């Protein structure tokens, strides 16, 4: 009995730290609708800054707490800087641009931490005066854990008071419900958003700083916390502070007790709970549907066909050039271009549902990964030939898309995006923790192509063929009656339904087709590398696809292809330099701020403005 009480307290201590971070994210989302990936980076920076302050402040024992508070405030300032310099410029852009921009900030923050603190882990001191444990039912509970639990409750109480008993809180609550009304009443929204970012970032920084006595400060803290924090925020209901608290407790206790029964699958449990809750209550445990600020990918333009100006001659030239690459370039560029084709297909598959159906998937890596793992398992474990696995892998991915998509297409906007992320994380946690079958963290090795396709030139042509067939099929579908039906459902759901279109069914079908195409891409990458690992399914891979689509331009067909090309080439060119990741992040941010229609869209707009041609057919 005593043991279970202590284990419960241990879970509660984790819950309290998790809540601090998650409450910050949920406040920011509730008001600004920004899905802030940089929140994890703020948590990491909070820990690093606190480490430095606690080490250097000449204040003795009080230095620890002063350092923690100052670190949290410093992170708040960093949050404000991000909001003012980047996000303020793109609140009007589709929501996804804000998400991608914050992912650019993640890259910059990572490099900044490397620059200032070096790559090594840092172990901070224990909290002065709290470096012991107290006896409880024969087990010991660290004093520091009890303080953190208390802090969790104090912050929960203070936030409740702030939002329910102050005028500022009332304004913030009004902002979450009706922004337009609020601005009509003369409230300065700019200032409000900035203040909310400050508060949210302070909480992230505080959460990070309080980790100091528990574990080493490391550069892996950012992405390792963000996935869990998303779970908590979505589970609790986006924008709901009590919801975040409840969800943090559920997730942490699940982990604390899950570890006793299923020590190897604690992560699977977490995401499983998330999916079950979201399927039953799409808006989270205590969440209410938040009015969409507009469809996340909607813009004033609609999908355009390929520019007719290019003509058949143009396409023949492009195809001829691609076919000639093996004769023109060295072996390494074959490898690089093979990757370009794979990611072009992946990006096109995401674009198919985003551009065509207005559906956003934050978790498209799920189908990429199912294809990759499907291929690897069939080839290595079942011993099928490569040709068969290339046919079956997309079937595996499509099956996954059919299952997950069934639930996803019922939602729209950011809720759909978050549910798709939850499903992707389920796939990730299963491949990550089901070691006996998937190889877990180690992945699956020896996923090599059949002997005839091993040669890099042959594999180049194989990839080119499959990617081209895949991309052209998707394009063709978008301008077939199916594609127009899909767009009718996107632009005018009520009218579409009233003329007898089953929107949900069409969206579901699109989801499955898209999943299959992503599966082909995933299996090709597995064969190209001879390996499959959890990185096939992790969050950065999903974001990669989003970035490629957005860089290229959502409302164009060639956009995703050019996005993938830009992405792969940029990465290859930049990686020769130190701190190149921050350069990459900055470019992403700049594209978001300066070219909200992507390269192709903005290029076309520029051409249109200069009066140089028709700008493609609507």
């Amino acid at each position: 009995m005593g043991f279970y009480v202590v284990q419960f307290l241990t879970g509660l201590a984790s819950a309290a730290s998790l809540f601090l971070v998650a409450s910050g994210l949920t406040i920011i989302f509730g008001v600004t609708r920004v899905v802030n990936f940089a929140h994890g980076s703020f948590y990491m920076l909070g820990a690093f800054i606190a480490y430095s302050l606690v080490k250097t402040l000449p204040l003795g024992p009080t230095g620890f707490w002063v350092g923690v508070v100052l670190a949290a405030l410093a992170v708040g300032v960093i949050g404000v800087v991000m909001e003012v310099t980047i996000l303020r410029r793109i609140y009007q852009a589709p929501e996804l641009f804000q998400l991608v921009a914050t992912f650019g900030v993640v890259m910059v923050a990572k490099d900044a931490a490397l620059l200032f603190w070096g790559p090594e882990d840092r172990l901070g001191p224990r909290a002065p005066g709290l470096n012991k444990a107290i006896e409880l039912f024969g087990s010991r509970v660290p004093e520091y854990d009890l303080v953190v639990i208390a802090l969790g409750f104090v912050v929960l109480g203070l936030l409740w008071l702030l939002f329910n008993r102050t005028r500022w809180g009332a304004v913030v609550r009004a902002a979450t419900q009706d922004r337009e009304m609020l601005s009509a009443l003369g409230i300065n929204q700019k200032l409000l958003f900035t203040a909310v970012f400050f508060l949210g970032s302070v909480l992230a920084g505080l959460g990070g700083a309080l980790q100091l006595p528990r574990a080493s400060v490391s550069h892996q803290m950012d992405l390792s916390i963000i996935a869990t924090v998303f779970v908590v925020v979505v589970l609790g209901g986006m924008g709901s502070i009590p919801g975040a608290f409840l969800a943090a407790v559920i997730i942490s206790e699940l982990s604390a007790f899950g570890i006793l029964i299923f020590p190897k699958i604690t992560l699977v449990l977490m995401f499983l709970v998330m999916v079950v809750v979201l399927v039953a209550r799409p808006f989270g445990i205590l969440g209410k549907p938040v009015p969409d600020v507009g469809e996340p990918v909607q813009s004033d333009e609609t999908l355009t066909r390929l520019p007719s100006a290019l003509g058949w001659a143009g396409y023949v030239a492009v195809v001829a050039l691609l076919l000639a690459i093996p004769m023109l370039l060295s072996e390494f560029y074959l490898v690089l271009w093979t990757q370009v084709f794979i990611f072009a297909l992946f990006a096109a598959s995401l674009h198919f549902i985003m551009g065509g159906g207005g559906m956003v998937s934050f978790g498209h890596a799920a189908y990429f990964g199912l294809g990759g793992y499907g291929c690897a398992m069939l080839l290595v474990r079942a011993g099928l030939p490569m040709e068969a696995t290339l046919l079956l892998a997309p079937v595996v991915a499509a099956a996954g898309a059919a299952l997950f998509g069934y639930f996803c297409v019922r939602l729209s906007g950011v809720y759909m995006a978050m549910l798709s992320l939850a499903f992707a994380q389920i796939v990730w946690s299963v491949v990550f923790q089901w070691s006996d079958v998937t190889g877990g963290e180690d992945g699956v090795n020896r996923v090599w192509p059949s002997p005839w396709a091993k040669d890099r030139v042959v594999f180049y042509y194989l990839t080119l063929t499959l990617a081209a067939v895949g991309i052209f099929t998707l394009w063709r579908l978008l301008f077939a009656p199916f594609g127009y039906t899909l767009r009718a459902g996107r632009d005018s759901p009520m009218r579409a339904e009233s003329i007898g279109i089953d929107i949900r069914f069409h969206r579901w079908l699109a989801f499955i087709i898209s999943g299959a195409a992503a599966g082909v891409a995933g299996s090709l990458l597995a064969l190209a590398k001879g390996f499959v690992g959890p990185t096939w399914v992790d969050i950065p891979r999903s974001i990669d696809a989003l970035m490629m689509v957005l860089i290229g331009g959502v409302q164009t067909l060639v956009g995703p292809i050019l996005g993938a090309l830009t992405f792969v080439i940029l990465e290859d060119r930049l990686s020769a330099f130190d701190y190149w990741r921050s350069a990459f992040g900055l470019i992403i941010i700049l594209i978001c701020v300066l070219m909200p229609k992507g390269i192709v869209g903005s290029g076309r707009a520029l051409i249109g403005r200069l009066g140089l041609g028709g700008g493609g057919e609507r």
Partner: protein
Amino acid sequence: MGPAREAGVKVRREDYMSQSKRLVGMVAASAIMIGAAGAALAADPIKIGEINSYTALADFTQPYRKGWQMAVNEINAKGGVIGRPLEVIARDDAGKPENAVSIAEELVTKDKVDILAGTYFSHIGVAVTNFSKEKKKLFIATEPMSDDITWAQGHNYTFRLRASTHIQSAMLAEEAAKTKAKRWAIVSPNYKFGQDAVAAFKRVLKEKRPDVEFVVEQWPALGKIDAGATVQALAQAKPDGIFNALFSRDLTAFVREADLRGLLTKDLVVAGLLTGEPEYLEPLGAEAPQGWIVTGYPWYAITDPKHKKFIDDYQAKYKETPKMGSLIGYVSIQAIAAMIQKAGSVDQDKLIVAMKGLTFDSVAGPVTFRDIDHQSTLGAWVGKTAVKDGKPIMVDWRYTQGPQYSIPDEEIKKLRGKE
């Protein structure tokens, strides 16, 4: 994505030009040496593609980098190997096997390296050794310890320097068998390295002490331990021995919680794989656990003149104390140089023939790459942890070479198959 974006900032080329500049500056004082260096510079460098987790596990890999840099500088100052200087192209895999494979491909197709080397994490080592087998490119696995690299997935193109998980776990099991502990708990990161280490420890301990039982196992994900809950779960089983294969940030979090929550009682026997390595022990400072049976690197107590010279030179050059990584990095380059010297060329087949059974004089004594499994005989230091003047150290240690802790040759042959 490709090698690149994840690969972090330390994607750095050990540029041949900048090295030669440094080299020229260094030897300018010595008229005799200029001739030698000039000759070396005239020849094409021998390229070594070095893949490592320079940002994901900097505690080990940064000293490792310094170790090999030192060896490369020394060798090039003497005119290189077979009249050609060594050039190391170092790339960061950010701790992800996918990146490592991409980098390996790039090193082979773009940089045209003669040899692949490195990798820290076992699962990355396994991914790269499979690449090396497929593309028939020599790979010197310098750090990864998984038994698979030399046994179940062993092949002609890969050799491994560092003592394997089986060797080091067997050393610990031998010491653990001498204690009274009967009820054993396991805590280990859930990936290749941990799985192999635990299997080896269990096997050897059971052989020596059939009366022991394993009462609880905790397998936190690498780098993601929920330390408080894990410690409680172990404590609940009331073990009298713990085999701990955690390292780096998992280890520090575990030790803090274990200490706070009273898991580490006086009578508890703890066998800690790698815990004695300075890169993992030193960050714990005075909080370091005492009396653990560990493998590690007690450089402060080494008296062998040759080894001592390496330790002194390293400290003079870098103004910091050596770590296990420093030694492995240095010896890696010694091994590669000896191999090329013996082969007389960088032809892959000749290198493999030369490497099989190659014996060279490392700073840690003579080392042989065994013909049977391509594992080097470089041993490990096994001892106990202690805290002296607020600093954690290893005491009562001994150095033992690897082979006597290996498994029977017949079994190795069966595992390696036809290869």
